[in-house]
């Protein structure tokens, strides 16, 4: 913040008016941005009031979603969302953190730059394109290789049994892994970059190897920011819609195995919303949306605070 905040005012009446107008409209634009966030929450709540009045908090714990009987419960979708995002974070966090370490601490510049560039490109690929690739290429591939292997070796463990369809929870988790990797890598890299050089130099002077420098000087310093990056990835995984909708199988039930077809909150909304009857059905889908909004906003607020603490307001994403 080295710039000069403009405080000088023009003396002429017209100038002063123009000044005020410009200041006012820019303040208005900024408040629209803040208002949008509040408005999203308020409108989602108002339009789902019917559901909250009918079911109360039992909506969240209810495990039946039956439009014919008029019973709506969000629990299966909350479970599906958390499981899919959980799988993604478990796989993406170590890979992403190691990649960030490699890019900022180990790789020579002529390698780090193109790699960073490619990971940013991965983030730019539209979700629906990843989903298309997921349905026709990745899911059949996983079914024949990884899933078949897990079932044959670990199939005796209840949650890891077959049958494996390719389309299902596991594929959704892998797709989400791919989609949140860039978030985790990019933010972790910024955070690690903010670690003062003196920290590293002190360790090097003590005769530490490069890994020891990373392990004992860099990572501890950047820890809360790296955790923030992972939570940010988790937030993205919870709300990611199109690619997940295309590979998760869209079955309204709590999955009984890792490969079962299931549904996340976002995929449920995406597949059911436009055919829903206006009334309790639409209201319940919007209530689902509100649950998702609360989950993702909490994740985002925690994550941003952690990241800001280490690196300041980075551009991110």
């Amino acid at each position, binding site marked *: *913040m*080295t*710039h*000069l905040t*403009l405080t*000088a005012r*023009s003396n002429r009446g017209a100038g002063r008016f123009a000044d005020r107008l410009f*200041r006012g409209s*820019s303040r208005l*634009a*900024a408040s*629209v*941005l*803040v208002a*949008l*966030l509040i408005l*999203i929450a308020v*409108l*989602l709540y108002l339009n789902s009031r019917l559901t909250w009045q009918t079911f109360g908090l039992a909506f969240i714990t209810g495990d039946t979603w039956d439009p014919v009987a008029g019973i709506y419960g969000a629990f299966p979708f909350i479970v599906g969302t958390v499981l899919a995002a959980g799988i993604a974070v478990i796989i993406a966090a170590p*890979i992403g953190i*190691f*990649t960030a370490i*490699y890019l900022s601490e*180990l790789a020579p510049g002529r390698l780090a*730059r193109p790699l960073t560039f*490619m990971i*940013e*490109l*991965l983030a*730019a690929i*539209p*979700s*629906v394109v990843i*989903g*298309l690739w997921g349905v*026709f*290429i990745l899911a059949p591939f996983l079914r024949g290789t990884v899933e078949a292997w897990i079932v044959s070796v670990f199939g005796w463990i209840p949650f890891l049994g077959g049958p494996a369809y390719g389309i299902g929870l596991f594929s959704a988790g892998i797709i989400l892994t791919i989609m949140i990797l*860039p978030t985790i890598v990019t933010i972790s890299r910024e955070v690690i970059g903010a670690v003062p050089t003196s920290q590293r130099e002190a360790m090097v002077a003590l005769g530490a*190897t490069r*890994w*020891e420098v*990373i392990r004992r000087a860099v990572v501890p310093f950047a820890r809360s920011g790296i955790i923030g990056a992972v939570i*940010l990835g988790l937030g993205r995984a919870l*709300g990611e*819609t*199109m690619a997940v909708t*295309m590979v998760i199988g869209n079955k309204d039930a709590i999955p009984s195995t890792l490969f079962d077809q299931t549904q996340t909150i976002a995929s449920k*909304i*995406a597949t059911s919303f*436009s055919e829903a009857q206006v009334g309790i059905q639409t209201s319940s*889908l*919007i209530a689902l*949306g509100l649950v*998702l*909004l609360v989950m*993702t906003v909490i*994740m*985002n607020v925690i994550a*941003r605070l952690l990241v800001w603490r280490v690196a300041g*307001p980075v551009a991110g994403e």
Partner: protein
Amino acid sequence: MASATPAVRTGRLTGTRASRRTWTDRIMRSVAALAAVACVVPLAAVLIFVTINGLAALNLDLLTRPSRAQGIGGGAEAAILGTIQMVALATLIAIPFGVLAGVYVNEFSSRRSARGVRFAADVLVGVPSILIGVFVFTFLVLPFKQYNAFAGSVALAVIMIPVIMRTTEEILKLVPGTLREASLALGIPAWRTVLSVVIRTGLPGILTGIMLAVARAAGETAPLLFTALGSRLVNVGDFSRPMDALPLFIYTNARQPYELQNQQAWGAAFLLLLFVLTVNVLVRARTAGRRAQ
């Protein structure tokens, strides 16, 4: 740790320790490099398959014909025109809000409210795009009982605004304070200083941010599902009716059980990816160059 212990023994001990340390160092460094490779593999896989399948499906019909009933072909004309129109309108809506909010944060606001707005923008970026679609549905579709392209554009604009605001603000931060001082010292009013000096100086950067936001909006599907809905008919200019978009076209055609429809999805995905990646490569190549200087 010297005197009493024989020199030879210490030497051997530190020797094994040292080699264990070097080995750990080597192994962990290779693990890190492998992780980086693992990140790039999916990018390569997506690019390769979309290019191969997309090019095979690409023909003049796909570009110039409207889509037809299941299984008998047609093209993505309605989707291409729809994406162009809706993204254009969304950009027109988002630019003033995004740029002005960025100007406010960097030029006029107190440090505290700047932090607040910036934080709100970051959280807004994190709101799942499907919820943006539901949000816009509640006030632009529900009251009129009619899916419409205008609602689609507004939803895309909501997604673009925080992106434009953050890049604008980052760029204006780089405009030297001396330029502002020089302008103010000449008696030029603040609004004029911001418009003709600050924004003018940061303009290439702001345009870069806008282009990235356009590329992002062009690829968004979820916000359009319950707003613009998608349509098989070519719709030029009527924003009160449903309109198709390339991402919607890909989504619906990927779900069809017909081979031909699936191929069209690949073709459209290739077009979309080509646009999105071209913008990203051009923009990022430029900014990377600037950062290096």
